């Protein structure tokens, strides 16, 4: 028995089995899902460095599955995070309706993502890609009534992306007669530049959609915010990484890394990569700005995800050893901290029933665990020491500086800085400040929800102090797959061409400083006074019942005013108007069916004569 089909079989079979058996009792469902996930996860884990290729012919297409170091890296991300989400949802979804559907689509999504990473040919890649799309679609529409618009938007955009990929992959097949990555990589440099460009564009349309590249990101905020919290975490944590994975596949696997020789290069970066990097940084900038003005916590996190994915995409676009390493590291990192944040916000929602930050506040005393998780999450997000975000950011800046990509570096820096704003907004409006009275009695979330959050927090700390295991795996993937010179590691010191950093030292110093300051603030300077919600200054305005003057309303008002111009031109609205226009155009077409039988008969005769005439001309 080959190991890869076994893993996929367990996963998909487990999903179906849990759905079917789950009809008996809800626990059976959860247990079956756990068993499936754990067994296949351990099987997967054991495949590090093993290349076990499985191939078969199905409906005349060759299908190849294998696990290589890159897929191992992504697979472990999927399994680990999937497990966390599953644990979390046992508590989160308890007593909710349609748990069967939830569990099923969660498992199918995880399984299909594993399928994507183990695929070594484009057809099975596409196959699992589509399964992932519909499985996640089922999740987006979980809250049926509100979710219709978001769901359809997600599905249709995904379909457009997927069909673009389909077109590209069959164009490749028509050219070289195979869909296997290896064969494509061997033949890629033989393609003409125009052909390559069209392939890249088509693939980027597909992957960019999932990786939420501007301007393909419009489905993200709606879909992320409307799906159940565990699934939002999965969406942002790993599902979006599939887009990143696809971009890596496109840029470094199926193209055989030949862009540098095929295209013009700028400062050592091939043109497609350079453009991709700009798209990435623009994504980061725009999304970050929009994130700042969001009031819905999940939407904020969604935009923040878009922004973070922008960095990752940029890093991959730059794509030498530092860039790739930082990209992959940031990807893992993003999975962890965005997972933490989504789960934590989900926990808040679980207890308070609202995602609106303006309705929350002062939860720090009621939900301390959650507060700490969010705190660690935003620290990682901001990329400041002592947590793992710092390492990724450091490598990213190093890569930019080393390539002397000044503008990119400046833009990245700007985006990172603006990101502080929404980080602060997130933690402040929810956990600090005054607490509305109705939340005075809420409790911390159940254990099953705390465990994954805490585990992820511990992981981000660990990676911050000691990123070398992860970097080893990344380096292994890079050397075996892309033939990129691995990034230099010496003991606990990271080296680039312009400098190095000893993570343990940096992290320890900053960590100790953090703890010290924390203690000082909580003991020596504890002079703050709790203020009631109603006890606020209204600056001359008479507070009426219609004006809710909670501090979190118009939180960054000056900033919002400043970026209003940007926000007005939404890509979403542009798509909507294009879609409406097209629909009206299509609607005209059906007027050909006039309803008069004689007209139809006339069509028949016209068609007949047309055939006669053209046939005679052609003979």
């Amino acid at each position: 028995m080959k190991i890869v089909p076994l893993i996929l079989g367990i996963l998909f079979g487990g999903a179906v089995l849990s759905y079917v058996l789950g009809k008996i009792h809800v626990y059976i469902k959860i247990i079956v899902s756990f068993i499936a996930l754990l067994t296949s996860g351990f099987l997967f884990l054991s495949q590090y460095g093993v290349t076990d290729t499985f191939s078969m012919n199905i409906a005349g297409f060759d299908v190849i599955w294998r696990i290589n170091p890159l897929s191992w890296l992504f697979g472990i991300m999927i399994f680990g995070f999937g497990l966390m989400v599953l644990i979390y949802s046992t508590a989160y979804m308890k007593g909710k309706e349609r748990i069967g559907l939830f569990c099923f689509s969660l498992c199918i999504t995880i399984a299909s993502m594993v399928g994507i990473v183990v695929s070594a040919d484009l057809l099975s890649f596409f196959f699992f890609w589509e399964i992932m799309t519909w499985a996640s679609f089922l999740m987006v529409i979980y809250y049926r009534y509100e979710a219709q618009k978001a769901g359809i938007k997600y599905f249709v955009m995904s379909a457009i992306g997927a069909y673009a990929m389909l077109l590209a992959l069959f164009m490749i097949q028509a050219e070289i007669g195979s869909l296997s990555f290896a064969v494509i990589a061997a033949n890629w440099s033989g393609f003409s530049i125009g052909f390559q460009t069209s392939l890249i564009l088509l693939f980027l349309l597909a992957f960019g959609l999932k990786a939420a590249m501007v301007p393909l990101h419009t489905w993200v905020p709606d879909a992320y915010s409307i799906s159940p919290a565990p699934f939002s975490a999965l969406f942002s944590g790993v599902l979006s990484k599939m887009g990143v994975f696809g971009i890596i596949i496109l840029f470094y696997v199926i193209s055989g890394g030949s862009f540098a020789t095929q295209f013009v290069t700028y400062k050592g970066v091939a043109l497609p990569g350079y453009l991709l990097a700009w798209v990435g940084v623009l994504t980061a900038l725009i999304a970050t700005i929009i994130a700042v003005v969001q009031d819905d916590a999940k939407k904020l996190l969604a935009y923040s995800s878009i922004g973070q994915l922008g960095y990752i995409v940029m890093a991959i676009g730059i794509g030498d050893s530092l860039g790739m390493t930082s990209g992959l590291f940031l990807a893992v990192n993003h999975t962890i901290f965005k997972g933490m944040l989504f789960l934590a916000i989900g926990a808040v929602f679980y207890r308070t029933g609202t995602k609106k930050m303006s309705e929350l506040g002062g939860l720090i005393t009621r939900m301390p665990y959650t507060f700490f998780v969010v705190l660690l999450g935003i620290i990682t997000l901001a990329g400041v020491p002592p947590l793992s975000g710092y390492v990724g950011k450091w490598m990213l800046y190093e890569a930019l500086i080393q390539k002397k990509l000044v503008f990119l570096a400046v833009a990245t820096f700007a985006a990172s800085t603006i990101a502080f704003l929404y980080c602060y907004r997130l933690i402040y409006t929810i956990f600090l400040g005054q607490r509305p009275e109705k939340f005075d009695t809420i409790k911390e979330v159940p254990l099953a929800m705390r465990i994954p959050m805490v585990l992820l927090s511990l992981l981000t700390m660990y990676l911050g102090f000691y990123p070398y295991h992860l970097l080893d795996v990344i380096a292994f993937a890079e050397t075996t797959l892309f033939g990129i010179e691995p990034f230099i590691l010496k003991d606990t010191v990271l080296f680039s061409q312009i400098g190095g950093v000893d993570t343990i030292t940096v992290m320890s110093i900053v960590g100790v400083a953090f703890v010290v300051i924390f203690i000082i603030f909580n003991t020596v300077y504890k002079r703050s006074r709790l203020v009631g919600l109603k006890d606020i200054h209204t600056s001359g305005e008479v507070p009426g019942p219609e004006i809710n003057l909670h501090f979190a309303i118009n939180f960054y008002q000056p900033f919002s005013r400043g970026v209003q111009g940007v926000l007005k031109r939404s890509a979403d609205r542009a798509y909507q108007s294009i879609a409406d226009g097209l629909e009206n155009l299509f609607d005209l077409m059906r007027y050909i069916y006039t309803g008069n039988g004689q007209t139809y008969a006339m069509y028949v005769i016209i068609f007949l004569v047309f055939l006669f005439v053209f046939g005679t001309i052609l003979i």
Partner: protein
Amino acid sequence: MVYYIASLSLILIGLYGVLVKKNLIKIVLSLSLINAGIHILLIAIGYIDGRTAPIFSTPELRPEQMVDPVPQALVLTAIVIGLAITALALTIVIRLYDHHKTLDVSKIRELKW
């Protein structure tokens, strides 16, 4: 040759009726005109100058003296099929008239677009 022209004229006149006449019964009549035209055409195709009908009514008749029997068989079948279509069409016309109180085809277009 006359037969060809006659049958073709029937077909074309019938087609004109189907495409232009608004009355439902006229349309059905036109359809049966087309059919009649095709039947004449088929029989004319099977005809061979100076030969007799394909019936060996007397033993002296030789196969070489007979016209092609196959088109005749086909036309027989086709006539019956034509009758069936006509009958059904007329039934539907009666039904349509019951509901719409008109025989104008251009006024019976509730199903459209």
